[in-house]
């Protein structure tokens, strides 16, 4: 039987795969969209649930989530993946946490929605401090794609007029709650700029999607599509064109190549039947997350496909994260309980380190951004650690409940280092027989210095807010825990030192594109998703133009 042949085969339906499917389908391309997980029906699956409605009140069966669904809760683990089916390995002394989803929409279903633009201070940091490489693009190359993405997905934010934190196309910001207002005053006292966290959550009706109703269930899946996710925003217009064939429960294993050094399709395994299937595509797009894309390339050819540079798999990064500073804000103790956690946004404190023309003279290079919030949450996190018992304890919990607050590290730049890399594990296979990744990742001194600087500065902000610090000790999280893993197929102008060009096209194979965080040259201090999507939009513009000129054949 002749192989089905599409104009493009896209692997992955998350932020980038969903966008690419939409843009190519709207341009008239016949697209096959592969998703390793299942299609869920959000309006059935995502409801406002209460801890006491769940068998284990949110914690899950003892041991289950901690061992097999790290990063998940009982509310959302069904849209994450089971590590038993999808293992990965690390050297014993280099823990890495790889938090993934296999479901239509991928991690957009439960992401933290933070939508920040990177600036030239990040894209061109190497020129300023001499470490690593500049990106092959500047802010000016990507600004209009940020505009395009923001216009579609809807980002609620306030303009900040800061060079390190470029403004965009914004819906009205969400109001600050009491604790955030107090932290805002504290930042003012310290001369730090701050702004409501920029989130892809609607504050008014937008593109036929209803505004946020402030239930606070974002990370469990939005029941109305008021936050950006693929299934509410990019996939409906993609499917409406009639040009998209959606293939769920299809686990991609290989990029297929023809004799003319062109990608010609994807081999995948049907998730439930284990049947192997091949589909053809004139263009192949990998958008299954930074590391899954790299894994596919490594598995598709000896030594890795599109790896003439030899850098495929190298320069793995997450962002620097770890324990924040928590405690209580005295003005809020004993106040009437308000709805504090309905919007889950927080106050954002953009990076203020190393902004000068020649940075790197201090204790570390690059920067970090922080967030602050507090108030009555769905569980009083401080209560188990509060000493005492009895009526006095109960009253103290109630008194402190609205005053609980924290300052946390939104993301610190983790330096790109060649020795942080992924490879195929020589032995271990996943449930479908595909070799798994062995991930090698450690922090370097600069990463640790950034965390330390954050902790000291967060302590200072907390004190400036008049806060009483409670149970706070510095502790870095293991790499991967921020779920901002990027790199391993970096972009660059030189094919000898990079896998992709600035359009996310592989240098080696003109009709093979890789969208996602893999192309990142550095992490910057922003959340990566908006940049990944803008680069996808830019790459798709280029792809469509070149395909029409016949240059990708």
């Amino acid at each position, binding site marked *: 039987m002749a192989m089905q042949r599409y104009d493009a085969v896209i692997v992955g339906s998350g932020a980038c795969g969903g966008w690419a499917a939409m843009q190519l389908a709207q341009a008239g391309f016949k697209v096959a969209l592969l998703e390793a997980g299942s299609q869920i029906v959000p309006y059935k699956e995502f409801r406002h649930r209460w801890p006491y409605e769940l068998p284990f*009140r949110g914690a899950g069966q003892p041991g289950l989530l901690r061992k097999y669904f790290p990063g998940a809760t009982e509310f959302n683990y069904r849209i994450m993946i089971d590590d038993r089916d999808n293992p990965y390995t690390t050297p014993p002394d280099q823990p890495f946490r790889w938090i993934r989803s296999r479901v239509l929409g991928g991690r957009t279903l439960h992401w933290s929605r933070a939508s920040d633009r990177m600036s030239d201070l990040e894209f061109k940091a190497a020129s300023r401090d001499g470490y690593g490489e500049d990106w092959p693009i500047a802010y000016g190359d990507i600004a209009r794609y940020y505009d395009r993405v923001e216009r579609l997905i809807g980002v609620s934010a306030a303009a900040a007029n800061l060079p390190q934190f470029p403004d965009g196309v914004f819906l009205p910001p969400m109001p600050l709650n009491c604790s955030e207002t107090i932290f805002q005053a504290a930042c003012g006292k310290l001369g730090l700029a701050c702004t409501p966290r920029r989130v892809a959550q609607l504050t008014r009706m937008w593109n036929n999607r209803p505004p946020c109703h402030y239930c606070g269930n974002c990370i469990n899946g939005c029941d109305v599509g008021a936050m950006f996710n693929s299934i509410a925003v990019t996939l409906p217009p993609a499917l409406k064109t009639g040009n998209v064939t959606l293939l769920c429960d299809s686990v991609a294993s290989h990029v297929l190549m023809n004799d003319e050094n062109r990608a010609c399709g994807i081999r995948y395994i049907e998730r439930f039947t284990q049947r192997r299937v091949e589909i053809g595509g004139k263009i192949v797009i990998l958008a299954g997350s930074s590391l899954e894309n790299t894994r596919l390339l490594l598995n598709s050819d000896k030594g890795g496909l599109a790896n003439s540079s030899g850098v495929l798999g190298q320069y793995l990064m997450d962002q620097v994260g770890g324990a924040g500073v928590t405690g209580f804000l005295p003005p809020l103790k004993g106040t009437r309980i308000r709805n504090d956690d309905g919007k889950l946004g927080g106050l954002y404190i953009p990076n203020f380190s190393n902004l000068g023309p020649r940075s790197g003279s201090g204790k570390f290079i690059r920067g970090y951004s922080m967030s602050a919030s507090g108030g009555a949450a769905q569980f009083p996190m401080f209560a188990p650690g509060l000493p005492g018992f009895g009526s006095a304890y109960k009253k103290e919990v109630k008194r402190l409940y609205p005053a609980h607050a924290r300052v946390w590290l939104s993301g610190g730049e983790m330096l790109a280092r060649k020795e942080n890399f992924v490879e195929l594990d020589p032995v271990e296979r996943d449930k479908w027989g595909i070799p798994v990744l062995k991930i090698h990742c450690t922090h370097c001194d600069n990463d640790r210095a950034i965390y330390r600087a954050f902790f000291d500065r967060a302590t200072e902000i907390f004190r400036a807010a008049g806060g009483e610090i409670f149970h706070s000790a510095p502790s870095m999280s293991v790499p991967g825990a921020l779920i901002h893993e990027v790199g391993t197929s970096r972009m660059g102008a030189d094919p000898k030192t990079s896998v992709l060009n600035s359009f996310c096209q592989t240098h080696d194979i003109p009709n093979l594109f890789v969208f996602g965080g893999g192309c990142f040259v550095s992490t910057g201090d922003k959340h990566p998703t908006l940049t990944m999507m803008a680069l996808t939009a830019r790459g798709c513009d280029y792809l469509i133009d070149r395909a029409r000129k016949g240059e990708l054949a």
Partner: protein
Amino acid sequence: MTRRDAAWAIVRAAAVAGAPEFLNAWMRHDETSAAPPEPDRWTNYEPKFFSAEEMKALDAFTAILIPTDETPGAREAHVVPFIDFVVAAAAEYEPELQDEWRQAMRRLHDYHFNQFSPADQLATVERMSHHEDDGNVAYELIKEMTVHAFYTSRIGLIDVLEYKGNAYLTEFPGCNHSEHHQI
């Protein structure tokens, strides 16, 4: 109703399975909590892990930790049956949790906790709450689980803490206190 409101209502009503229940819940964003009742899992609950003696000791212990006073406490929130349910379910993925509870229960047994008067039970819990006490490991284990069980119950979360989230709001109520803008 403005055009925008109407469009919004239609989008939501059409999109959501069980639209009447949805809209009903949505309308009730007043001072009464729209939190649904807690499913009754405990009225005829048969303990799966703890013995009758251990259930009795835990009942007294947790009622000292979170007593019934002006507001409901651990007893009304069915903390002990919930703990039994969780510890029993630990067999599969975290059997070491069961060992910890067995040791804690042995400790209470050795103290003859069930034979004490309420005043002596209170004194025992007080003594165990000190870090240097032999019973502190048991105390911390029971307290952590009790606090989790209590504040995740409807009684703990809604009746005692008066949690206001997980609601449907048309606008988020931002801070309107001038004193919070200046510190």
